[in-house]
């Protein structure tokens, strides 16, 4: 990792930041999918699954 020249003293938590593996997040199974949304004026709206079983048929 490139050493960052920070003029101000960083909080202690900085060294515990977890770096996101972009390859993992944006490809393969369970990847994050960005979609368009005109109403919210963004091309980076996230496609999401509901947090509960909306229907229970099977």
């Amino acid at each position: 990792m490139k050493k960052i020249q920070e003029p101000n003293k960083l909080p202690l938590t900085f060294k515990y930041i977890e770096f996101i593996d972009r390859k993992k997040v944006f490809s393969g199974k369970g990847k994050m999918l960005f979609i368009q949304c005109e109403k919210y004026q963004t091309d980076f709206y996230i496609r999401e699954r509901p947090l509960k079983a909306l229907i229970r048929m099977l």
Partner: protein
Amino acid sequence: MRYFNLFSNILITKGASRILISDLQRNTSELYPLELCDLIAELNKSSIEEVLTLYDHESKIIIQQYLDLLLEEEYGFITSGDWDKNFIPMSLEYHDNSTISNLFIEIDGLSVLQKIKSSIEKLEIKYLTIFSHKNLSYEEFLKIDRYFKKSPVEGIDILSPYHQSIDDIFIQNLNSEVFRIYNLTFYSYKEKISTLKDDYRFTINFTNQKLTINSCGKVNMDYFNTNITKVLEAINYNSCLYKKIGIDLEGNIKNCPAMPKIFGNVKTNSLEEAIKHSEFPEYWNLTKDHIETCKDCEFRYICTDCRAYTELSHKNDNGLDCSKPLKCGYNPYIGEWEDWSTNQLKQKAINHYKIIANK
């Protein structure tokens, strides 16, 4: 003196015969004996040493084992001198900023979707569940996805009959062209496609069952969800009908397409008009704590309710059906699951719904 502190994100749901400990940070739930609930309550009032004095020698060993379990599962931590007062209890309030969060619609053509598209956008509905009675062609799947291309819809679930054109090429092409669809279910299939990969943008289910709208409302462990949003919603509101809107095959606007009460019809009313009806949100506040049998069940906050198919045995003071869901085979008083469809006590209600469905 040592004190046991339960983490704020640990939710204990007491049932009639067992308890469920839900870890709302790790999204896991585990079953434990009822006595562990009493022990945690005692540890919340007294120090570990004081609690141990309440038990004889043999029981002390069991208490120590329970303490080890609580620490091992990271449900809490031990402090000396006093409880750690820095960790306040978690708020159990639930707020959802949307007017309607999900729509469940029965279709036999795409025209109705075109009709309600602007209402879906205005109400900022996040999830659509589309149950199609007719075969959907490749172009129709694309059309559905494209109808909502620029809308705030976050995900679409489609259930459609299986037909011969559906093969691995069909699915692969769909995978590269649809964006909002997160789940596809093909029902009444004859033979399953064997070469399907499992890294599509959406999940795929095949079932040989001939699904109808009456197939919904099943309660089993596969449909339980442990996450803070779902659990807090279930604590405060009805876990199925809160902010749900349904449209049946005739275009009738309801709480759920399988329920009888009608609040308008898409041919003459907008969804916005229908939800203004004073009785539209009548079931929204009926939590599992007020539903017969469910109120004594340890799974009540991770389970999703059903008001369309119930045992039809109880009504509350406001005339709302507060009976146990018909398609739940769990008995919380003995902690056992059984086949709900063969339960003799449910046959009257089962026959009632069969008659309604055949009308």
